């Protein structure tokens, strides 16, 4: 069995001293997997990702990256260990052109060659290639989403944390984004994503977690979880095709 690259145990975290948002979340992401986290709004999904990337300091429990604890490290250090992250909101540098956004994205691994990675991203999202000098702040919602994804992919991360990557995307780009996630995964990248497009996300995942009120509510193999009627009704808006 492939190793467990990212593990949290009884993770407790929050934003203000008295209020904990995560009340003991334990997840396991094994190498090469796609893992999806779903749950109601405000369940703590984004907070979980923020804790993993170092934006929120954990108050209890542990986070292990390839067996080594990373809680307490600054995000820039965690990113250099091969984690990539696409935030849910404010995920592009609004005052900078698309191309500079991508250039900044390459920061953790400049050795990859800027030109090569840029070309790869423009091939993936031609819309970005057409607009490379447009400042990101004037992009449409979907265009921003593409840019945010591309920025995170620039340094070829080993593990990618995605916070609602398909929100705001037109259907053809939703498809593209999911295909892209699958492709990136096939190339060896481990993926942990949060999605409200939950049925489709779970269907392509090796494993899924349902988070509610800052705790693990359900877990299981992705497709199975999506088919679980209780889960579907409570969290996925009923059964989908």
């Amino acid at each position: 069995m492939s190793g467990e690259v990212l593990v949290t145990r009884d993770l407790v975290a929050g934003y203000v001293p008295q209020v904990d948002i995560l009340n003991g979340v334990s997840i396991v992401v094994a190498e090469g997997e796609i893992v999806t986290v779903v749950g109601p709004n405000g369940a703590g999904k984004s907070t979980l990702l923020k804790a993993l990337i170092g934006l929120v300091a954990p108050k209890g429990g542990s986070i292990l990256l390839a067996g080594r604890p990373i809680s307490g490290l600054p995000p820039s250090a965690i990113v250099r260990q091969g984690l990539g992250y696409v935030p849910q909101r404010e995920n592009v540098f609004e005052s900078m052109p698309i191309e500079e956004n991508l250039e900044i994205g390459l920061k953790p691994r400049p050795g990859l060659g800027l030109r090569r990675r840029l070309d790869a991203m423009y091939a993936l999202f031609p819309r970005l290639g057409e607009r490379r000098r447009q400042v990101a702040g004037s992009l449409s919602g979907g265009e921003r989403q593409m840019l945010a994804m591309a920025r995170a992919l620039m340094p070829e991360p080993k593990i990618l944390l995605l916070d609602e990557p398909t929100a705001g995307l037109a259907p053809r780009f939703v498809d593209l984004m999911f295909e892209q996630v699958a492709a990136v995964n096939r190339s060896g990248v481990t993926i942990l994503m949060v999605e409200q497009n939950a049925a489709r996300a779970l269907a392509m995942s090796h494993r899924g977690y349902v988070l509610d009120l800052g705790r693990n509510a359900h877990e299981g193999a992705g497709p199975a979880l999506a088919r679980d009627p209780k889960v579907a009704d409570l969290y996925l808006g009923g059964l989908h095709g």
Partner: protein
Amino acid sequence: MAGSNEAGKADALQPHGAGTLRLSRPVLLLLVIVVLFAALVALYGFDATAQATVNGLVAGGYLGLGAIGLSLILGILKLVNFAHGDLLVAGAYFTILFGWLGLPLVVAMLFAMIATAALAVLTEKVVWQPLRQAGAGTLQLFLSAIGLALVLRFGIQFFAGSQVRTLGADIVSSITIGPIHLGTLQAVALVTGLVVMAVVGLALRFTGIGKEMRAFADNRALAEVSGINTRRIIDVTWAASGFLAALAGILYAVAIGSFNPNFGVTLLLSLFAATVLGGIGNAYGALIGGLVIGLSQEWSTLLLNARWKPAVGFALLILMLLLMPQGIFGKARRRS
């Protein structure tokens, strides 16, 4: 997506394409300046106008140079550094200190710039970093900046006294170009200002650290998760700001001839005006903003008694903001 490529071409041909004749604001500004210059020449003759123009460029040069460091801090760290004027003063007094320790003037100046840069970084470590971690807002930072400004200015005054000092340079020598007289040191200050503006502007635009600084300015959290070492960015920004402040302070002190620890605070408002006029965080903007203020003030002396000069600068500032709400180099933001 070949379709949208075609659409892109079609856009350019559209009559509504936001007016191909529309000039960018900097060009427009230059045009206005040229027209005003011509008008003044017609009214007051070439000699007087040219002399006022040169004077205006020099005065504006000091302001612009002083404003660059301020603009960096404001733009990148979002901090209204009320103590910036006092960093200028620190530069001048460090020069005195190193001169007193026996270093030749030019070496003392260089050391002073380095010392001021170190001082600026120190303020980050002692004052700003803890405040940022405590989650202080803009106005809280502003209060601390007032406090820090007091500590710096009066710290200097405590040791050096408030009497007038000089750096002992030759402030009366001047260059004569046709009918125009220009103080030698004034010329040095102006040229230095232009060079520094270009260097800082290019560095921000093209170097890696410059891009990181802009990314940091734009979105701190995103910069962190993009792997930027934000501590380093902050330190570099402070060091640059301190260095530039000292450079500006020293040049000003040298060229104007005499000063006391108040000179920074008296310049501060004009520095802010230059910063805002040019577009916050923009090195070219800061200098151009300074030059515009300087020019308008000196030109105004042709029309009005010089006693109105400071008021003219402020009036122009308001006027320009109303005409160009984004500043000379600023950009409009999308509202939705």
